[in-house]
């Protein structure tokens, strides 16, 4: 049985949230109230609302407190870190103007590219790129995705690039869909959870963010040692920090961008980067996400 109940921006090749449909659904918020609300918020001294997706290690309270302290200090705004269980919730909050900016995944950024603007892109291992991993239990003897047929497969989030889209696209290449290729798919709502599910044996294979997996291998080796990487995708744009286009020039977003870009320059910023195992942030360009956009097209064209 498949987790068909999991909401997704793109599902089974049929865009649940096609760009048009998404606009229809959230149009009112975006075009009217949200913009208004944003300007009202900017005028008042409301905290800078920064959304975080489970793309990275949101369960690390020390990281959250240090990140908040750093951003508050650097931006001069009181910063509020907003966390939600799913990518979709954060995306909705961002689109509805309730967030000044959010660290989202490349997939929603590509889908909603005409609404969003890049604030900054993290740099990992020298580049603003990462890849998606297909993992299995360490003792399992498989080499290709084809051998995973009939598995119970763990995805991270329906709106995750590395934790869903990449595998879906890889299956589309061989004219297969996860719903019928796998015996069952599970959404675990976090890359760390994918590793847990595969490591414990709950799932037989999983799609996970390569960056998260590598960081976990360093920080929580017990979690990853029960697993093995079967397939690494090509390098794709790292999950970016984005804001509404309408707010790209606002003071909070400007301050946030500066704080992120200069993070590697101050000790407390380096502290945060050290926990995140990132090198820093760059301005980045939407071109970085061409690879992801291609995968979206692939999945959609498969129908």
């Amino acid at each position, binding site marked *: 049985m498949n987790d068909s109940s999991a909401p997704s921006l793109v599902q089974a090749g049929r865009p649940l949230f096609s760009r048009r449909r998404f606009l229809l659904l959230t149009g009112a918020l975006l075009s009217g109230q949200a913009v208004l609300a944003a300007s009202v918020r900017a005028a008042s001294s409301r905290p800078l609302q920064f959304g975080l997706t489970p793309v990275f290690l949101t369960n690390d309270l020390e990281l959250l407190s240090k990140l908040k302290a750093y951003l508050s200090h650097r931006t001069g705004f009181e910063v509020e870190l907003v966390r939600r269980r799913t990518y979709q919730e954060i995306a909705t909050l961002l689109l509805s103007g309730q967030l000044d900016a959010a660290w989202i995944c490349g997939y929603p950024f590509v889908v909603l590219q005409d609404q969003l603007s890049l604030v900054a892109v993290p740099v990992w291992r020298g580049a603003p790129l990462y890849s998606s991993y297909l993992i299995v239990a360490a003792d399992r003897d498989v080499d290709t995705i084809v051998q995973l047929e009939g598995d119970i497969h763990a995805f991270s989030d329906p709106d995750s690039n590395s934790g869903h889209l990449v595998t879906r696209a890889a299956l589309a290449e061989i004219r297969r869909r996860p719903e019928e290729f796998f015996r069952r798919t599970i959404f675990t709502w976090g890359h760390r959870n994918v590793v847990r599910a595969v490591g414990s044996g*709950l799932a037989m294979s999983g799609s996970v963010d390569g960056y998260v997996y590598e960081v976990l291998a360093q920080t929580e080796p017990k979690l990853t040692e029960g697993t093995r990487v079967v397939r690494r995708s090509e390098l794709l744009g790292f999950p970016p920090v984005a804001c509404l286009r309408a707010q790209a020039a606002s003071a909070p977003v400007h301050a946030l961008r500066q704080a992120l870009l200069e993070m590697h320059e101050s000790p407390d910023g380096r502290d945060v980067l050290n926990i995140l195992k990132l090198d820093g942030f760059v301005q980045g360009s939407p071109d970085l996400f061409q690879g992801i956009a291609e995968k979206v097209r692939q999945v959609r064209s498969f129908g």
Partner: protein
Amino acid sequence: MRRADRLTALDPRSWPITIKVPLLVAIMMLAVGVAVTDRVLRRLEAIQEMHLKELASAYMDGLSALVLPHVMHNDTWEVFDALERAAGGYGGLELMWTTVVTPGGSIIASSQPQLFPVDSDMTRSLIQRFAGNAELILAKDEERAHLRRILTYQDRTIGAIYADVGISRLLRERRDVLMTLLLTNFVLTLGFASLGYLLVRRMVRPVNILTHYLGRARTKGLDPIPASHMPRAGSEFGKLFDRYNEMARAVAERELLATRLAQEEKLASLGRLTSGIAHEINNPLGGLFNTIDALKRHGDSEEVRRTSISLLERGLSGIRDVVRAALHVYRTEKSPRSLTSADIEDLLLLIRPELKRKKLRIDWRCDFSGSLPVPAAAVRDIALNLLLNACATSPEGGKIKFFAGQKDNTLKLVIADEGTGIPEEAKSYLERADAGKAPIEERAGLGLWMVRRLADELTATISVMAVAGSGTSISLTIPLREVEGMRHVA
């Protein structure tokens, strides 16, 4: 140790009280220990099971609330995540696995997905071991408890949680308690038994002292217990010891009296003997004087002179023999010496006057020559007494039999007469060992008492065969032994 001794040693009735009391204490302590241990362990088991039930129930309550919405959505990940989170919150429970299933028994998620893969069917036996509404089953053999909770929503069953928890910690706790109890009981038992031993030993010490002194009485006579060994005056044992000392003094006085009586008896028989000896000397004396007269008158004659000298020599030799024998018998010997056949022959010499007086015949046999390792004086006194008695009881012209000889490791003496037979009480008196402690009532019995006393000293046995009207035969069996070691034997 001989078999009989071993058997006696095994019989608890023969054990000393110093062993019996501590043993009894130990047995009682053991019984109390067993009862207490049993009660404590039962109670502990009940408490542990109650705690386990409470804890298991709390775990299931918490877990049910956590997984219920996800079970309704059949959300494998959320159920798994809930199981993992709940596992950390119940440190008191040794969770082996927890598995959530649909009403049909299909596994939604398990904390051990390797054992219980998602979507597979829960093993029938695991489900079926729960009868009715049972929520906890203890399986002590497997050292675990099986838990179950049915998940219901709006009165409808939407699934169930199964779990196994280890109870090895509880069992270990029970073993620890058992070991502690055993050790404590052992130490207490040992302590109380030792204390009992020391107390009883202290309590029976006066009894042991008394036993020791009474035991010594057989060989050394009754000695009063010295003041240093006396218990506190006025206590039970103090009174007992006072009585014993009084008795010891009374016995000592009686012994003294008996010795004096024996001396008198000795003197009396000496008187009788002396008169006999005097008679024995007197008889040849008349002849000797006659010979002297003959010598005075016809000393010129060679024939007369030779005959007279020969007569004188024989007469004087007879007198010398008698005197020597008397001296021999009554000389106080500085140290005991072994009996010789000459000592026996001396006896014949000594009783000859009595034999003559009553015209008695004697059948005299001495079957040993040289010496035998028995104290000469004591044996001689016994034999002389019995011979004189035989002479006294025999009718005139009667016959006395005497036999002395070695038989195995003993000296055997037999004295038989043809008298009227020895009275029954005298017979049993003679035959009873230890009877020599006190003389028999009648004055006439002093001789027998001396015999009995000396026989006791020689550890000799006496048997009397009396046939009414045809005499008495008294046999003595005296064990041969080193005379040097018997200095105390008179």
